[in-house]
């Protein structure tokens, strides 16, 4: 074999290796999508079908309309209300994260403040704190201030995933803005607020989108705070809805698969629409931050 042939063969070998890796990585997602179209009989038949076997929309009907479904003991009702709840929580987390993080990140990168070192260190440490530690206390605190079972409580709690990360990512971004921009604005007579509002925010668009994508996925996908702060009688996000289909002795697999597939939709959308923001956020948040 010539050198060229060998290197070409090596390249295709790499493609093959990557393809195998991707099959393993994507297979569970594929399985849940296929499973969501299977009938209850198929799901409980004791055989796993690699391709849809007698495809049906029954599971989606059960999940979105809350009908009795294929099994009699379908516990939870409709998930469509839960989808709306998750959307509200996700968007609420985005708003909270941006309101808190954008100005803070700006101050932590462009102002010389005594508190900067302490605050940035606290943010790094805050990322380490396990959610269950916060959840236990927040449950009692929210109970105490009569905020259990409410959107604000859940959104404040979900902010703990998004806010430290958001501040660190945005701060890293603001460092890349030249200081001359702010000097020029001041010389032109802009107030600090005007500089921030009219010059800095418009320039930070891409970093803001990155942070918003992550905040949305954090709020949408949260389970632990929903499980602890909501007691199941009021609002219920889709993650909690999925959990409610898992019985101790029998699981309504059709409903689980279909609601799982619905819960994956935002992730899929983000992957298509905001791909580059996700990749940049993943790396910026942890290494370059």
């Amino acid at each position, binding site marked *: 074999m010539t050198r060229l042939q060998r290197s070409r063969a090596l*390249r*295709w070998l*790499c493609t093959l290796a*990557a393809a195998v*890796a*991707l099959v393993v*990585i994507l297979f*569970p*997602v594929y399985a849940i999508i296929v499973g969501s179209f299977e009938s209850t009989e198929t799901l409980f*038949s004791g*055989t*796993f079908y690699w391709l849809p076997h007698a495809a049906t929309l029954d599971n989606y009907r059960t999940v979105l309309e809350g009908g009795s479904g294929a099994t009699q003991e379908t516990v939870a009702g409709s998930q469509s209300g839960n989808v709306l709840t998750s959307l509200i929580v996700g968007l609420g987390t985005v708003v909270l994260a941006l309101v*808190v993080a954008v*100005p*803070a990140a700006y*101050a932590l990168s*462009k*102002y*010389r*403040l005594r*508190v*900067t070192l302490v*605050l940035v260190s*606290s*943010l*790094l*440490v805050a990322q380490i704190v*396990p959610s*269950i*530690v*916060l959840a*236990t*206390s*927040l449950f*009692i605190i929210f*109970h*105490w201030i009569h905020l259990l079972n409410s959107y604000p409580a859940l959104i*404040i709690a979900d902010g703990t995933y998004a*806010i430290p990360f958001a*501040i*660190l990512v945005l701060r890293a971004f603001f*460092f890349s803005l030249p200081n001359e921009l*702010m000097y020029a604005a001041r010389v032109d007579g802009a107030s600090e607020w005007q500089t921030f509002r009219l010059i800095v925010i418009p320039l930070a668009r891409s970093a803001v989108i990155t942070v918003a994508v992550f905040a949305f*996925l954090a709020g*949408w*996908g*949260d*389970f632990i705070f929903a499980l602890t702060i909501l007691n199941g009688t009021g609002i219920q996000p889709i*993650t909690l809805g*999925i959990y409610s289909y*898992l019985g101790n002795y029998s699981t309504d*697999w059709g409903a689980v698969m279909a609601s*799982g597939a619905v819960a*994956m939709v935002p992730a899929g959308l983000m*992957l298509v629409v905001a791909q580059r923001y996700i*990749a940049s956020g*993943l*790396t910026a948040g*942890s290494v370059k*931050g």
Partner: protein
Amino acid sequence: MLSEQAVQSPGDAPPPRLSSWQKQQLAGWLFLTPAIAYLLFAFALPIAYNVMLSFEQTSPATVAHFTAPWAGLDNYRFVLHDPTSREAIVHTFEFTAGSLIGQFVIGFALALLFSLRFPGRTIARSLVIVPWLLPLIVTGVMFRFLFQAEGGAVNQVLMNVGLAHHPIQWLNDPHLSMWTILVANIWLGVPFFTLLLYSALQDVPMEVKEAAIIDGAGPWQRLRLVIVPIILPVIEVTVLLGFVFTVKVFDLVIGLTGGGPANSTQLITTWSYNLSFQVFSFGEGAALNNVLLVLALICAPLYLFLSRDSLRRSSGAGA
């Protein structure tokens, strides 16, 4: 700021308005106010309250009162003697070590693969992050589906290729269940390792790699003696964050095994949830939480040290 002060000669009457420096300090603090308030309410208060709870004699009735009678070290004594709590701590160590090894080895291999040029690498790289985007509870139930003894894809594959002759009771056998949460968590964490290590590999200067080739270093030598030392800081941060993510894992295990069978996959997080929210022993749950918090925060100084450049960094367009 300097120029402004220089302009104000001592003879001038002090203007009643704020100096430029004061204005900027004020603006900086105002920009920080929401964040400081948030950190105090959502992090500092719960952590402090959790410490307080761990020394209290709680009951379902005390939840309404915010405080409860003093319990001294009783809750910690409980945690140390409760067999399930002790098991949960051991499981957390096993789970974390196993996950990190798996995630690092696979993640690094994929990062190296993606840094080679081959057809389809862009699409492969963008799809590899899929597991990372899904809600964790979905990942949990997804693997519960795949690991079913009857009708689970994992057993079907193993039996088809002849590695198993009868369905393996992944989820019902306490000796095997740990493998299910390990596999699921490795699957979940690989994208993070891959992406971070991949971006570090991109930053290795071409000249360094070429120089090593000219010096006659083989691929393995280049990796071990040239590339790894250069990207070591990123490897350290990645493993550290991987550790932090893994000791926190909760949703995945609840969705996959619920901590069972026979508590064989009970982690500190899931058992703490059980203590606090299933049996309403908030004091005991809080004590176990603190064990977890200490465990997680062990790496805080290291994390701060590794982030020292970012901490020190200040471009200070302000005063």
